[in-house]
């Protein structure tokens, strides 16, 4: 007799998960047709508005679309990560809320939305409120230069790579601010560690990006992708397959640096649960905490996107080209990030610093010099 209500709930949540799964499938279709849709919108705008206004409106629509993507993507990514974690540990993961738990993220998000917004007594109220927005801003504004297809990029900066390096370090300020404003020793430790980590790993990241820039001769992300087009099956010219394996080392190093910059395992020392409670967001609750979460998954996606652009040909994929291929490639990299998270244990602070300064930076310089030598000798 106690069975009927849960059974009914299961039925309802299964029904509710239909629109969610349909929406995910629809998103993939939209991704596949993105160039055509963008062309359509551009035509409409240029027919109805003055050139300046049309450009402005197109940018606004692009920004809206990308912000929508980054805010909705964690719903999928969190569910996916929990599923991967569970299956790696021979568990099932979320199964109750919706079909195989697809509504779990909605339930969690709803919970965070309704939670009390607490600001601790001794906290610096202004900085405490400002910090999550800075973190989110750093991640979101980085997406401005990520190219989705030929001519489909919010801002086609000719110093795109430089912008990426600069804006990704923006998050360190926010995290340090969150740690300081919380007036909590664990939060402060987390913030300090995060700042040390991000500043250290900026260096090998920047140098490896430079090694690609040396091979292209341009800082524009679209030019970097254009240099990787063509060849056998449209993937022969990807940078990871060039320069006799030198770029494979570069790609792996960049991937490791990306993990460290987004504070992912095995480099999640800023939020090490076993030592620091939750690190810099110990004192945060409700929607402000959700913003940090959003920023983490956004940063994961962005770092994977940059890795795809630099080494895996961006949107000019194998066989097909376009936003869908780009998106799937990013998801593949994100999968590896999650896979590593549930494989490796957390590094100690000194081990992490040793990895950066003793191993990654020398490797990065070797890759850069090798790329330069190859470029000069190859003409």
């Amino acid at each position: 007799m106690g069975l009927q209500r849960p059974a009914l709930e299961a039925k309802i949540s299964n029904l509710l998960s239909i629109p969610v799964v349909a929406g995910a499938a629809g998103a993939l279709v939209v991704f596949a047709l993105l160039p055509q849709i963008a062309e359509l919108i551009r035509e409409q705008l240029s027919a109805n508005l003055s050139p300046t206004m049309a450009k402005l409106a197109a940018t606004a629509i692009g920004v809206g679309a990308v912000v929508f993507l980054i805010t909705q993507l964690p719903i999928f990514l969190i569910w996916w990560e929990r599923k991967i974690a569970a299956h790696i540990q021979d568990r099932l993961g979320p199964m109750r809320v919706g079909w195989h738990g697809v509504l779990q993220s909605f339930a969690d998000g709803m919970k965070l939305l309704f939670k009390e917004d607490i600001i601790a007594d001794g906290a610096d109220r202004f900085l405490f409120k400002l910090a999550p927005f800075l973190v989110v801003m750093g991640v979101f504004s980085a997406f401005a230069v990520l190219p989705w297809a030929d001519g489909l990029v919010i801002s086609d900066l000719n110093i795109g790579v430089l912008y990426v390096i600069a804006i990704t370090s923006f998050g360190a300020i926010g995290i340090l601010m969150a740690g300081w404003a919380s007036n909590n020793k664990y939060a402060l430790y987390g913030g300090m560690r995060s700042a040390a980590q991000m500043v250290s790993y900026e260096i090998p990241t920047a140098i490896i990006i430079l090694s690609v820039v040396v091979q292209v001769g341009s800082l524009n992300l679209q030019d970097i992708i254009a240099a990787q087009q063509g060849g056998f099956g449209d993937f022969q010219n990807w940078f990871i397959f060039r320069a006799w394996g030198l770029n494979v080392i570069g790609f792996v190093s960049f991937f490791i640096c990306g993990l460290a910059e987004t504070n992912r395992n095995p480099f999640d020392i800023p939020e090490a649960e076993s030592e620091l409670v939750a690190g810099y967001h110990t004192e945060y609750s409700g929607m402000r905490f959700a913003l940090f979460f959003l920023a983490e998954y956004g940063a994961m996606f962005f770092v994977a996107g940059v890795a795809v652009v630099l080494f895996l040909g961006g949107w000019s994929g194998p066989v097909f080209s376009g936003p869908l291929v780009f998106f799937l490639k990013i998801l593949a990299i994100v999968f590896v990030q999650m896979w590593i998270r549930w494989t490796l244990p957390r590094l100690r602070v000194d081990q992490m610093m040793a990895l950066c300064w003793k191993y990654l930076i020398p490797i990065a310089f070797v890759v850069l010099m090798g790329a330069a030598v190859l470029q000069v000798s190859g003409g």
Partner: protein
Amino acid sequence: MKEYFLDFWDAVSSTATGMAITLRHLFMKNETQQYLSDEKPETRWNSVIVPEGLLQDRSRMRLYVKMEDCIGCLQCEKVCPVDCITISTEKRQKTELPIFAANGQGIKQRVVQFDIDMSLCCYCNLCVYPCPTDCIVMTPEYEFAERDKTNFLYRFAKDKATPPEPPEEKKEAEPVAAG
């Protein structure tokens, strides 16, 4: 200098080994058993029919005592780490009919109180091991939530305590209530 380069090999090979293991586990069969699966044990007091493979072999659920076999040795009460078992016994008279547990052991004590507070029970299974007649068991019954905490006090004893010896002076026989 040689060690420096060996470190690279160590890092790459050990990470690859770990990732191979986790990838294998990603596609392994899961151990999780869903709570509200279609198959459920037919729950009846003392007789639970469990479908094959529904529960783990060593699952520990609600306690049950077969009072017919209990010899009142108090071993389960002594071993219980949370003191959720309360037993009181009294000696059976020599004149009473000799009774035996299922394994042939003579029952010398009359168990007049055998209370288990399942709200305290920590499901450690320690009471089951020392029982000489295997009369206290863990059943596969797991769905027994209650609205009132006092309902978790299970009283297993069937025998009533012998009333204290009547005083010397004889009482007048009370009139039998009309049926």
